[in-house]
């Protein structure tokens, strides 16, 4: 994609001149690939090891200021099952690791942010390292973008039974948290962060402050369990709004990799009591879940919802479809749905419950806002 820029000038005696120049967008590696590493070990200046945050479990309660934020750099937060609470504001985490487990399946949250102006750069959100240092068989670190590439394990069947094969490629439910990051205020930024071993990765709540997620890699969910298990089964998501009240406004999700055997949504902008406003989901790489994308759900009247230049790929089969049908939303109120491409991973095929039984020859088709596939873009 390129753009032509027009420039002009006038000199001292009134002569004028004009010119044009072109700028071009090139494809950058999606997060988690060698050309775009994420997580604490790839933070600029990483010294080779982390310093434990002490005392372990201590919350972040002291705020910085907008001009002088407090910076935590290369710290290891061993959050146990209780998680880290960040009520403080003006905090920057750089190259940190946050560990958490959920031994009682009690909805553990790794990091909860209630403060304003909190940023995470090149951080790792992981299960407790003592329980699972890496996903089974290396997971997505071996088979980017996540464990199970090409195995054709739909996250669950239509009766919420997890695919039996998931036990071999996911960590046990108790090893990782239900929530890696819960954001209750803003602005909040996650950039070049690595998330794995969760049920619901990032959840947001009602705020109008800017929430931004750029170049993050979300992969390798924990084993989702069965609906009859204690606590029920996980409804695994990537980034979303789940609590059914007032959705946050002003959310940017750009150039992230969100691929997993989660059984709900990579983009989980689920229904609330009011319409969505000012969300941009741009140039992300996504695979798996039931509907990979739910965007534009809830009451009618959403405005400025942008979903462009995304890739929906079949490394992990979506249980039902790439997108839940919200086509009408994207035909009004400044909303835009464009240039979203379907990608067929080699040797994959539609699984039995998928709504559209796609064909491999459709590789490169456009995915429309109703979840269908077409050789031409959404109108």
């Amino acid at each position, binding site marked *: 994609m390129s*753009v032509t820029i027009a*420039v002009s*000038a006038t000199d001292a005696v009134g002569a004028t001149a004009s*010119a044009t120049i072109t*700028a*071009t967008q090139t494809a950058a590696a999606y997060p988690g690939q060698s050309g775009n590493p994420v997580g604490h070990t790839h933070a600029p200046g990483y010294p080779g090891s982390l310093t434990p945050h002490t005392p372990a479990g201590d919350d972040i309660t002291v705020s910085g200021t907008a001009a002088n934020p407090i910076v935590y750099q290369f710290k290891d937060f061993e959050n146990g099952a209780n998680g880290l609470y960040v009520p403080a504001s003006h905090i920057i985490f750089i190259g940190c690791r946050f560990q958490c487990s959920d031994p009682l399946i009690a909805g553990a949250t790794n990091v909860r942010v209630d403060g304003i102006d909190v940023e995470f750069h090149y951080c790792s959100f992981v299960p407790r390292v003592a329980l699972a240092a890496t996903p089974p068989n290396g997971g997505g670190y071996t088979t980017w973008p996540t464990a199970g590439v090409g195995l054709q394990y739909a996250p669950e069947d239509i009766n919420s039974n997890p695919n039996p094969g998931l036990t071999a490629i996911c960590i046990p439910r108790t090893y990782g948290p239900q929530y890696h990051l819960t954001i209750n205020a803003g602005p909040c930024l996650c950039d070049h962060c690595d998330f794995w071993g969760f049920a619901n990765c990032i959840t947001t709540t009602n705020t109008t402050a800017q929430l931004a997620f750029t170049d993050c890699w979300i992969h390798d969910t924990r084993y989702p369990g069965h609906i009859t298990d204690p606590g029920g089964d996980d409804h695994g998501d990537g980034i979303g709004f789940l609590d059914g009240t007032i959705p946050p406004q002003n959310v940017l999700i750009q150039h992230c990799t969100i691929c997993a055997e989660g059984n709900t949504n990579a983009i989980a902008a689920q229904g609330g009591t009011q319409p969505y406003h000012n969300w941009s989901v741009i*140039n992300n790489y996504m695979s798996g879940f039931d509907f990979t994308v739910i965007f534009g759900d809830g009451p009618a009247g959403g405005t400025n919802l942008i979903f462009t230049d995304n890739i929906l790929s079949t490394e992990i089969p979506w249980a039902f479809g790439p997108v839940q049908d919200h086509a009408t939303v994207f035909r009004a109120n400044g909303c835009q749905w464009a240039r979203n491409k379907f990608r067929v991973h080699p040797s994959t095929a539609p699984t039995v419950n998928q709504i559209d039984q796609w064909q491999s020859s459709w590789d490169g088709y456009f995915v429309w806002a109703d979840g269908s596939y077409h050789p031409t873009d959404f109108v």
Partner: protein
Amino acid sequence: MSSTITITGTVTDNAGATGNYSVVVTLDSFTLVAVVTPANAPAGTTRNLTVTPSGGTSPFTFGTPTAPGITFTPVAGQPGQWTFVF
């Protein structure tokens, strides 16, 4: 860049004598050289636009660049320079 035109003519006095004249006029014009750095980069990259006059008579007044959907931010104290995100 500039170009010239030569004007010639004849003047006759009231006694019928003639004389020729010739004058060279320089037409003011110039060109612009525009450079974007980086010209090729991933989406979302902050880029610099520099516009440099070639020829002409200083000082120059620069119009705000235009491109669909792009906002150009002037670089303080640097006429002819902007940043933008694309």
